């Protein structure tokens, strides 16, 4: 069961976000102004967590190189992060029973993101790197996520 998915680019901007509610209606994604602000704060907090946690984990690690995937589990959810060499971060929140999602996140990067966003012929606005409106990406992503949940 997948609860939430976010993508951050190398400048810490959240370029994609989607949420699937536990009650399976998935409708309320920041529709009211208050909820929208909460969503923004959640995105910032998630980035801060991912960023700091990786730095911290690298310092404690017996290996000299920083990890490109890590996850933590609470009694309510599990958070997985995959970071590419280009400092893009793919964050996934799932139920606690889900296993290692490194390969799946890597596949989202290579088969969904690269194919539909990097190779997209649509003009890009450097001011607004968000891919929330990219229909091809959203479609492929949802297909992929359905296949793995």
């Amino acid at each position, binding site marked *: 069961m997948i609860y939430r998915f976010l993508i951050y680019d*190398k*400048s*810490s901007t959240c370029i994609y976000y989607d949420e699937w509610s536990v009650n399976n209606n998935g409708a309320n994604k920041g529709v009211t102004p208050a909820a929208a602000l909460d969503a923004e704060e959640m995105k*910032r907090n998630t*980035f*801060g967590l991912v*960023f700091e946690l990786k*730095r911290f984990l690298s310092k404690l690690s017996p290996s*000299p*190189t*920083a990890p490109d995937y890590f996850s933590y589990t609470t009694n309510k959810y599990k958070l997985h992060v995959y970071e*590419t*060499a*280009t*400092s*893009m971060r793919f964050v996934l929140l799932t139920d606690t029973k889900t296993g290692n999602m490194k390969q799946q996140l890597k596949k989202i*990067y*290579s*088969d969904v*993101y*690269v194919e539909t966003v*990097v*190779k997209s012929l649509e003009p890009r606005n450097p001011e607004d790197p968000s891919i929330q409106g990219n229909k091809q990406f959203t479609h492929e992503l949802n297909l992929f996520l359905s296949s793995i949940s």
Partner: protein
Amino acid sequence: RNIKMLRQRGDDMFKKTEKINAELFILTYGSIVTQLIQDFDTIEQVNTKLDEMGYNIGIRLIEEFLAKSKVECTASKRGEIKEVADIISKVAFMMFLGVSATVPPSSWNSDNTVFSLVVEDNPLIEFVELPEEYKNLWYSNIISGVIRGALEMIQLKVTVKQVKCPLKGDEATEFQIDYHGIINNDIPAL
């Protein structure tokens, strides 16, 4: 990681990648260069523009390269430019241009921050002749930009320029790469 393994990886990637008709590619590139020469006043401007275009390609190409080739880029995090040089010459060139480049050991400077990339059978220059009035043109300069853009996205700062060209009478195409260090974007402005 040794050269043989990288070479093998390069060959595998070449086999797996979707191909485009070589002549179409070469002639399209030729028309782009010709158009730029018409659009700009000086050849220097054309060289700069080719580099810019290459940069814009490079910043995206790196994602495809990392996603497809599955090369572990820990070398870039440690600033191990020698390994990065091998990966570019053996895997990346093979994957995208179908030819492999070499990094002559003699081209490294004393503190291993400058090296050359030599391409023997540069596909871009096939069928091309360089007229006398364009002798300052670095015809393959787009590749300089591609390398610079791609490496910038994996936190390596480099300057790249084309220094030898068979269209000017040299033996092979050669690029000089100057490595300036790791780009530290550790603290983002939140």
